[in-house]
């Protein structure tokens, strides 16, 4: 699925959808001086005029686009083509060959600025600061002065070398929600400096790099993703402070839904996956983990430190956490539980005691109980102070003085009642719909249908111990989903 989302001012918008078929010559009127890249042509307007006019307009548009593309090609520089090219001083003498381009992306700028070059001079790798660069062309780099202060290259905090650490490595495209591998990187002089502006993911660029060296010079901005939608990975070693990174880069990740994050986590390789996890808060990460494929999740938890795995599991919904724990081997499970907060671990161990296919095995214990002696106002006040009320909660279990369930109170009822109403006034005559913790899935489904609710309470000896949400029943009823995975290929 090609993407042409160059929706930044200096690059034209280009979509394959409205590109006319090949074979149309440049005979269209108005050769529009396509000097600058700005102002990507919009799609042709409404259906005014005859078909011929539309064709003419589309041709004009195409012409404009081609010119714009050419202008873009002249402006942006392909990193893959630049590496290995001569670096010349002011006098035009070659001082060495370009080995790599250094970028800094730790300070939260959309387009990371180039901070210097690594130049191979003889057998030395010297660092040339960006201030010494005059111009970066397609096939050479020109420096400002003839005298240079060369020092050996030492990567600094927050800096990456583009050719070695980013090109050909995995990146996350946040807008397209996909994991990509950079086929080429594009540099451009924008915003008062040379910056990394885009990443190329086209097969065409791969072929271009495979071919003769001169092919590499011409950028082929066909499937370019704007760097603004890329979540890069810091390549510095494990000793690096993860907090630093997450402050600066999290804004892009926040656009993602948990399910999308889960997809990305599944597609990334271990080191990148670990970095993505590090840049999320435990709660954000837990939401994503709940959406992951069970097998991938088990693999992720196994390779994480037990301490980290424990924090993640503790932040997940109890029923999801228990499922994940079941998928881990006995050794890993006890490691993780040992590293977990005592109270949370005890709760999870208790849940693990229920067989997986019975109500106790797939209920969640994140539910709210209230005494019938409380008032509506008191309860809402209490919920307000509660740190972590589950969003999907649709009812509250009302219990009497002995902790026995008397009624399952829908949230809406709570909302529309006067604050001073006592909860026992809201209890209705009929029995609340419940299931025992040993109930099979089919029975739970029957009771749900009967109750016409989105959830049903699980009781033991008349006391509420958990709640089963409709989606858990759906999950339990469709165990074959994972197994019948391949047919999706043909849909």
């Amino acid at each position, binding site marked *: 699925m090609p993407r042409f989302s160059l929706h930044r001012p200096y690059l034209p918008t280009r979509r394959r959808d409205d590109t006319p078929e090949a074979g149309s010559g440049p005979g269209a009127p108005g050769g529009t001086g396509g000097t600058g890249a700005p102002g990507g042509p919009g799609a042709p307007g409404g259906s005014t005029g005859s078909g011929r006019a539309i064709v003419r307009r589309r041709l004009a548009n195409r012409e404009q686009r081609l010119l714009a593309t050419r202008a873009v090609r002249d402006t942006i520089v392909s990193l893959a083509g630049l590496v290995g090219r001569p670096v010349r001083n002011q006098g035009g003498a070659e001082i060495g060959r370009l080995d790599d381009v250094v970028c800094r992306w730790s300070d939260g700028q959309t387009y990371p600025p180039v901070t210097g070059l690594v130049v191979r001079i003889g057998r030395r790798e010297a660092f040339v600061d960006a201030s010494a660069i005059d111009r970066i062309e397609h096939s050479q780099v020109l420096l400002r002065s003839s005298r240079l202060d060369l020092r050996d290259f030492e990567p600094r905090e927050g800096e990456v070398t583009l050719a070695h650490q980013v090109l050909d490595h995995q990146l996350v495209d946040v807008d397209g929600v996909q994991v990509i591998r950079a086929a080429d990187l594009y540099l451009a002089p924008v915003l008062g400096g040379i910056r990394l502006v885009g990443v190329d*993911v086209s097969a065409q660029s791969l072929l271009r790099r495979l071919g003769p060296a001169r092919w590499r010079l011409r950028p082929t901005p066909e499937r370019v993703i704007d760097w603004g939608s890329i979540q890069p990975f810091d390549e510095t070693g494990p000793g690096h402070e993860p907090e630093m990174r997450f402050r600066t880069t999290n804004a892009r990740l926040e656009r993602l839904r948990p399910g999308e994050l889960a997809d990305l986590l599944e597609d990334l390789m271990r080191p990148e996956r670990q970095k993505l996890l590090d840049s999320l808060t435990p709660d954000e990460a837990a939401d994503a983990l709940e959406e992951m494929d069970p097998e991938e999740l088990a*693999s992720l938890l196994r390779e994480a430190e037990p301490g980290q795995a424990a924090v993640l599991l503790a932040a997940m919904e109890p029923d999801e956490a228990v499922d994940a724990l079941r998928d881990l081997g006995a050794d890993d499970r006890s490691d993780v539980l040992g590293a977990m907060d005592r109270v949370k671990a005890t709760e999870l161990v208790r849940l693990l005691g229920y067989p997986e296919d019975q109500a106790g095995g797939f209920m969640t214990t994140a539910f709210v109980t209230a005494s019938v002696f409380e008032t509506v106002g008191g309860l809402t006040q209490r919920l307000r102070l509660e740190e972590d009320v589950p969003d999907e909660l649709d009812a509250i279990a009302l219990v009497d003085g002995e902790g026995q369930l008397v009624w399952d109170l829908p949230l809406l009822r709570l909302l529309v009642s006067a604050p001073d109403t006592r909860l026992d006034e809201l209890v209705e005559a009929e029995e609340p719909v419940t299931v025992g913790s040993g109930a099979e899935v089919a029975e739970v489904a029957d009771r749900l249908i009967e109750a016409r609710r989105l959830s049903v309470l699980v009781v033991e000896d008349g006391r509420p111990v958990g709640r089963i949400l409709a989606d858990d029943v759906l999950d339990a009823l469709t165990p074959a989903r994972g197994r019948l995975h*391949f047919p999706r290929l043909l849909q």
Partner: protein
Amino acid sequence: MTGVATRRFRRFWPYLAAAGPGLIAANAGNDAGGVATYASAGAEFGYRPLFFMVVITVGYVCVQEMVARLAAHTGKGLAALIREQFTLRLTAFAVLAFAVANVGLVVTEFAGIGAAFELFGVSRYLSVPLAAVAIWMLVMLGSYRYAERVFLVLSLVFITYPIAMFFGHPDWAQVASNLVIPHFLHSKAFILVGVGLIGTTITPYIQLYTAGAVVDRGIGPDEYQYERIDAVSGAILSDLVSIFIIIATAAVLGGTGALTSAAQAAKALEPLAGRFAEALFGIGLLGASALAAAVVPLSTSYAMAEAVGVERSVSKSFRQAPLFLGLFTAQIVVGAGLVLLPGNLFSLIINAQVLEGVVTPITLVFILILANRRSLLGSAANGRLARTVGLATVILVGSFATFLVVSTVLGWIGVSL
């Protein structure tokens, strides 16, 4: 470990691994190519290839250990590692090498299916196209995993080789001396068999498989010490089975010349199974071949998608994953198609192993360089021992392959070495 029911097809490495490491290892040596090559080597040279197998085993253990270590410490598959660590041109070269080797393997598997059916009197022009369509459909419709279990059970027939070996009353003194006393035969035929033995033992496919399996099981640097035991013992076990096959065949057929049919190879099982030997051999051959005929193209496509950088497409629909499914389909079509060309099926199997043996040194160089790299593995990079053994393996494997290629090319212009 999750139950088989919750496993997704997308990751098929752990899926096979769930069948038990020992079984997998035994099966690795027991695919159609392996059985045919080992049996043919035993029939042609008797016990003579045994020492060579011991040498290969040392190299194989070393390679498997390096691959498992790379995967455990980087968390990445071999193809992805090569893409990130080498230039794009070298990556393309490596991917091409893996592709050639794996297509050779697919050809082997379909030839195995054809040879198995020929034992039961079914023409390959009927059995191979049907098998190709059936395997393609089974994979696409998602029911392959059930069929696969059947194939796995069928292929267990080859576990009878060690027993057959004892029933065949081999000359144990000869076996012992040929195992430990270094000897090589200087003849083109022996070099050919040697390259075949290398190709079917240190298969490029197994390297991709091992790396993928280690990554997917979530094995990290901490658990690597256990994984090392697994990798090494698996390699040794696999080669033990290979050695049993050579001995069993040598005992019955030793010195009769290279094998040209599955029926001949089946004779090695006669001391055990009598007149059922052919049927037994046919069943095992069919199971092992059909098992691999789907898994090999799938994992090749997976590795290539990984190298190109479209990992995500593996779980997507046909339209969204043209590369992955196109490659899968193409491999089955090419593999089955080549088998339909007239010619001896059994020789085709062995020649495909020779092809693998020629490609193996290329992939080994990549693995050795990666495992030597301190910038990649840090303190887990190859030590002096691994470096030396690795280099020696590459040189041995490389010189065999080079000699074969050079002498073959010189043969075309009339020069014989």
